[in-house]
């Protein structure tokens, strides 16, 4: 397999605090890859650097051979990288349906059409995506009034509407009940398989991580301290010491 995303010597600091320290990383096309690490390890910053929300101080990020550094989020998503957010990031006063519809309008480049009624566009595509994430019966509800778990599902539908080849999910199950977590992970796995997506995700729940990831990278103080198959990472002495050990005790 070839590298879909290559990151080389990436640095980012905020007012002296180093959030990303010399990260070098390769994501293979078609793999499901988890980034784990304690709170504050720099996982979200890492995602923000890839998707153009933050600009790295140093280093390179390239996607399918194309340099991403300096590109704004709206250009990067058009290259085929979509993401969801750890903290809910939807359009609260729009309906669930419109939340997804707007993403399809943007994906098709129709946001400059001043004449075609927005509500008539992509009705079928929107419906299909809502069915895929299990929100079809909530289509006409106001998005901000959905339960937390359902808003997370909506995040996923919005990200999928951009027809990505690489999907980045930042803690897709954070704040969910164990049952919701199980359902969400099962549906993510099905979608990724059905659409042939490459998936990069962060996650707190170790059973989720070891359940679906094919490879795992461990971030600690902004540095990748281990990267490899679940078994290799589980048995890595450094990882055991800084991270998994904490869980073993707890």
């Amino acid at each position, binding site marked *: 397999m070839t590298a879909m995303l290559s990151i080389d010597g990436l640095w980012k600091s905020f007012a002296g605090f180093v959030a990303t320290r010399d990260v070098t990383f390769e994501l293979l096309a078609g793999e499901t890859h988890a980034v784990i690490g304690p709170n504050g390890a720099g996982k979200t910053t890492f995602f923000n650097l890839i998707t153009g929300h933050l600009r790295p101080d140093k280093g390179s990020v390239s996607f399918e051979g194309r340099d991403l550094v300096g590109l704004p989020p709206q250009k990067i998503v058009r290259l085929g990288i979509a993401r969801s957010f750890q903290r809910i990031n939807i359009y609260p006063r729009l309906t669930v349906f419109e939340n997804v519809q707007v993403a399809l309008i943007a*994906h098709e480049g129709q946001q400059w059409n001043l*004449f075609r009624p927005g509500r008539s566009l992509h009705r079928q595509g929107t419906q299909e995506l809502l069915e895929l994430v299990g929100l079809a019966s909530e289509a006409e509800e106001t998005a901000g009034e959905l339960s937390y778990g359902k808003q997370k599902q909506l995040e996923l539908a919005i990200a999928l509407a951009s027809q990505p080849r690489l999907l980045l999910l930042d803690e897709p199950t954070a704040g969910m009940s164990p049952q919701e977590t199980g359902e969400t992970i099962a549906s993510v796995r099905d979608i990724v398989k059905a659409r042939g997506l490459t998936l990069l995700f962060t996650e707190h729940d170790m059973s989720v991580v070891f359940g679906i990831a094919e490879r795992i990278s461990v971030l600690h103080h902004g540095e990748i301290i281990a990267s490899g198959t679940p078994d290799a990472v589980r048995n890595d002495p450094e990882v055991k010491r800084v991270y998994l050990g904490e869980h073993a005790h707890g």
Partner: protein
Amino acid sequence: MPQRRDLIASAIVVLLLALLPLAGSRYAIDLTTEVMIYALFALSLNVLIGFTGNISFGHAAYFAIGGYACAILLTTYGWPLALALPAAVVLAGLVAAVVGYFCVRLTQIYFAMLTLAFAMLVWGVAFKWKEVTGGDDGFTGIKMPEIIAHHVGYFYFTLVVVAAGIAALWVICHSAFGLTLVAIRENSVRAGFIGVDTRHMRWAAFTVAGTFGGLAGALFGMYHRGMYIENAFWTESANVLIMVLLGGIYSFIGPIIGAAVLHLLQTFTNQYTPYWPTVLGLILLVIVMVLPDGLIGLVRRVRARGGRP
């Protein structure tokens, strides 16, 4: 497409307005003409506020540019109305595009302050460029085409132009473009991550708002047979902002209701007391404290409580 119910309701309103000169006094006709002009002005501002989530404190600038440009082209240069009016509207739109180019680089209060700064600049030009604008004497004695010189003719002219303007704004606000603007209002960061260039979209919204604001201004100048520097002053920007807030920013027709209510209140208040600014202050207080989503929001809440759909 618009709901059939909305189309029928709009047609009835236009028809009733068209019948007004048969029954109404000169006073009623003039007052209605003013309300229609303000309704278009307020709607144009709401493209920015309600649909894009960007609050402009300087919308009077485009109103004034449209008004002065139309007046000057008609009078000083003797252009026919069919050229002067479109040219004035295009000029207001062009200036909005230039100003907007800088304003949309900022957000929130910094955006608002920059719109105010540019509007004060426009006021300054109207004030100082005496040989063209008439300075603080105003630009008076606008030459009006025969057909709309009479107040009834002007009423019908305003009705047609405002109805067309509102229809155009309706189409724009409900288009794919308009829905994307609402997404930017709701969450501009997220809009970026679905592939929307939010700055360009906000720039376009700014230009649309300025263009239609200019159209309202041109109608206003001709109606009064003159333009005055007060029309470009920041208080005029505040006035239209209050109209929008009073009606309700989250609905298309809210600003129309707000413009009508505020203008009629002002007119009637002025007949009894010179303390309009005090009344205006009280209205603003009520909006901020109890009507955050305006009169339309109030109607919606009352309906929801009554259990009606």
